[in-house]
């Protein structure tokens, strides 16, 4: 259901591409997360995240399928990640949808780097949290490189980690997101 909503959103956005020149789309975006717990350091990443940014409407959506995360310390760990902690079958995607607070200060024609704040809803594990996330935007012609670093508290998203492994998984997961968005002509 949720997936279909996301697809509808995509479809609407993509269909309006031809008439609006302010839309940037990025596929194969990278999301990396780090759990730095006392007993174990877990790094996992996905290169299958996608994002759409409509600068004329000031809205964007970034989404990633949780099953695309790779690089766990063991296959069992990946299984736990998908089946026990994030319940990927129930909640297959993680999304961040919102707007840029300081959009007015950005000049898309200039090749330069901006630090902006985004305000939106971060949905992981079916729990929506309103967040302000700082990110860097580097404009290179028709390409925007977006990079953001933020924390996700497991508690905020109702992600339950069994007591037995909580020495191995950090309460706060550090996430790093980088996207290359191409302007749609």
């Amino acid at each position, binding site marked *: 259901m949720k997936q279909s909503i996301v697809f509808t959103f995509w479809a609407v956005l993509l269909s309006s591409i031809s008439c609006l020149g302010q839309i940037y789309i990025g596929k194969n975006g990278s999301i990396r997360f780090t759990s730095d717990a006392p007993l174990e350091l877990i790094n996992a990443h996905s290169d299958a995240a996608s994002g759409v940014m409509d600068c004329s409407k000031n809205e964007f959506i970034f989404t990633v399928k949780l099953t695309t995360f790779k690089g766990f310390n063991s296959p069992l760990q990946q299984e736990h990640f998908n089946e026990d902690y994030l319940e990927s079958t129930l909640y297959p995607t993680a999304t961040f949808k919102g707007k840029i607070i300081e959009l007015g200060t950005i000049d898309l024609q200039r090749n330069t780097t901006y*630090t902006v704040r985004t305000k939106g809803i971060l949905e992981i594990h079916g729990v929506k949290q309103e967040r*302000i996330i*700082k990110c860097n935007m580097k404009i290179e012609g028709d390409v925007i490189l977006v990079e953001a670093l*933020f924390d996700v508290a497991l508690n905020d998203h109702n992600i339950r980690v069994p007591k037995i492994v909580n020495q191995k998984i950090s309460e706060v997961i550090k996430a790093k997101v980088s996207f290359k968005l191409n302007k749609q002509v």
Partner: protein
Amino acid sequence: MKRWVLVLCLQLMVWIGYSQTLQHYATEQGTTFYKVYQTKRGKLFFGTDKGLYTLENKKIVRQFIPPNLHTGMITALFEDHSEQLWIGFNDGKIGFLSKNYQYQEWNIPEGHPAVKIVDIREDPQHKMWFATHGEGVYVYDNQKYINIDKDDGLSSNDSYCMELDPEGKIWLGTDDGINICTFQNGQKHIEKKTSDIIYFLTYSEEEKMMIAGYQIGGYFTQFFGKTKDSGFFPLADQEFENQHSITFSKPETWIATDSKIYTTCKGECLFTYKELNFDLKKIQQLYQDRQGNFWILDAKHKVSSVVPLFKNETFDTPPIQTLDIFLGTQNGLYYNQLNRKIQKVTIPNCPNPNVISQLDSEWFGTFGQGLYNFNTDKFIKGLNDENIFSLVAYQDKILAATLAGVSAIDKQTHAVSDFSKQLNIKPAYTYKLLTTKSDSILWMATDGLGLIQVKNNSVRYFNELERKPFKTVYAIAEDTIQRIWISIPGIGLAYLENNQLLPFKGNNAIRNTNILSIVCDTHNNLIVCHDEGVDYVLPETGEVFPISQYFTDFVPNFSLNSSVYSQDGVNLASGNHIYTILFDQIIRPQIWMEPIEIDGIKSEVEKSIFKYDENNLHFKFGVNFFNNDQDLKLFYQLEGYHSVWESRNIHEIEYANLPAGNYTLRAYMTKGTFRSNVIEYSFTIEKVFWKKWWFILLSALLLTLLIYTIIKLREKRQQVKSEMEKDVLNAQLEALRSQINPHFLFNTLNTLVSVIEDNPKEAVEFVNKLSDFFRKLLGMRERSIISIQEELSLTKDYAYLVKQRFQTGIQINIDDQEAFGGIYPLTLQILIENAIKHNVVSTKNPIVVDIKLSKNQIVVKNNKIPKLQKEPSTGFGLDYIKRHYQYDFKKEISIQDSAEQFLVILPVINLPQ
């Protein structure tokens, strides 16, 4: 309410004259001062474009924030509950100064706003709110940092100010009205009010009101219990040009525009402002510190402060003392505490003393019985005269003013001496004695000698006013600025300035110049009693307000010196009544509701639920203070009917045919710039009973029941009808069966055989009749009603057949009159058949069937020769005919069965047209 008192203070200041000057503070050159804020510990901080400054030894110095940090202008300062001073910058950065003045930049991963921080507040849950100009408002609850902007329902992202209300809600002043915001459990809630550009919001704890300033003025809303949502009222009666900031402070209300400061003054009312004569340019902020001093930041003088006019008067509110008050009346002495029950004091041996003076709880002067000491319960003997007007403590003595000069009584020994004689003053009527509080000068009001001053045993007489001599002084009073006020009969009030007596300029306005008593309040206004009642006198403006019509049963009969003054108010004795006037109430006009009239008939005010037909309501209002109705205006609003405030010049409102519903009536009155309290009255007009739920429910139930019954009845009728139809079919079958009954056929054929043998001609006739009979029978069977003629012709055929068989054994007599009408088919045939069936046929004793037709009925009669063995009955026949007549024609057939004969009376049925 205290503001009304303030108005009076302000009036006094006109008399003193404005002596306010700005005190400027030395500052660094080129620094723009933007914000001033005082912490709870009393330290004053200044936000500038060059950092944070404080006031140290009357110098404004830069402190705390290192110059290498933050170059932006400080635009917001706020101290939270843990005494951290939050600092907001023009560029959106936020920092704070810890309790021990260590500066720290506030860094959170979400980052700072990119626009100006306009204000900072903390709500009761210790959430910090940061209002910005361009990005709405941010909330931080120690974990989450949330933004609320236009997308969340805010009127505008550009805010100018922020304030916390007593309910813990954040009021945000934006350029599109006020937004009242809360953030709880992740839920943002925003309520929008008005649509002005709000430059300033401030909550006054004392007045319990939120004041908002917009482009050209201000308005306020009150937080008094129920009336908290009473709407916005204008703050001033005038508009301000180019106003960009507004400050509502206590005790005086000051309003700052771009380059001018206005204050409430010149007495009239809170709603009137006067410009102060300060030379200012581009005012950034007007602020009042905890000591009451005003601070002004402007482009010309940078930092200036000014002391308010009435700093000591109202800022350090003295604790309210409840004084024991004794009231001397012509009927005795009364004891009273303000606002409490008045009790009569019993004096032994003297049931109703005419007490008109009282010194303290020990000494009382009576008119006629002399001086009374409460401690010893004894009258003091040996006074100049037994009629005492006034008592005063002077040095170590008690002085009593009598009709024959002044007597002195030693406080300890109670020894009496003639004080007048000692000072060589003629023994004259002495009405009033007064010792000044500061220098203990004694003043005497006499009849004949004028005003006498006694200073260090030297006596000075004042008996000329503007070179006109006077002899009598009724009353003396001293105000808080050591002015002596006296009353001279025929002239009015006069006061002493530089040992010179000057007349009061407003004497013409006092209703009676024979002033018997003067009381001065803490604001140096006078309450005077005379034969017309009580007037309130404002010395500096010369204005006089008659206040005694406030008492509906007022008797203008004041005894001399019978008014007693305390800090809360004045007690007045009049006739048999004692009145307490609280200062607040004297000044603030009060409005109240008179009993409501319903269809012209008075009802109690307490009533709040009216029946549906009690909807012609006539509201009347009473108001004190205003003695005439000229330029009196009533403002009113009936929530639920008209939410717009309307005004009219009479204090009555009439509503006719109010529809059922809940209403709240609010009203206040104004006279000129004076404004009364707002009263509120909620009431309900009930719905008509047929619109009430129970009635509708009952009707619906009844209707359902009715429909149900009708359906059931119809069903039953249908059932009966179908039963009948079944009966008809059965009967037809039975009739048919009987006709082709083998017996019938056998008998008929037997008869035919015998007839053929005897008389062949007759046989032809017989066969013809038989076939006729069957033809007719077939034709009739289907019909429910046939004419009597048709039935008779069938019956005759049948009778012929029967007769041929039984010969003389049966006689069928048909009274063949012309008969009209209808009959159920085969009825007569069935009856004849019955007769044959149940009786023995013999020639000796024949069966006689008589059929008699008349206009209304058919009578079928046969004699009875019963068979010994009864024929089995099929249950049809007679019973079947009976039922048909009942159901189809609603008619009864009558059956008379006796030993001799069997008689059936059939009613004639009308044939359908």
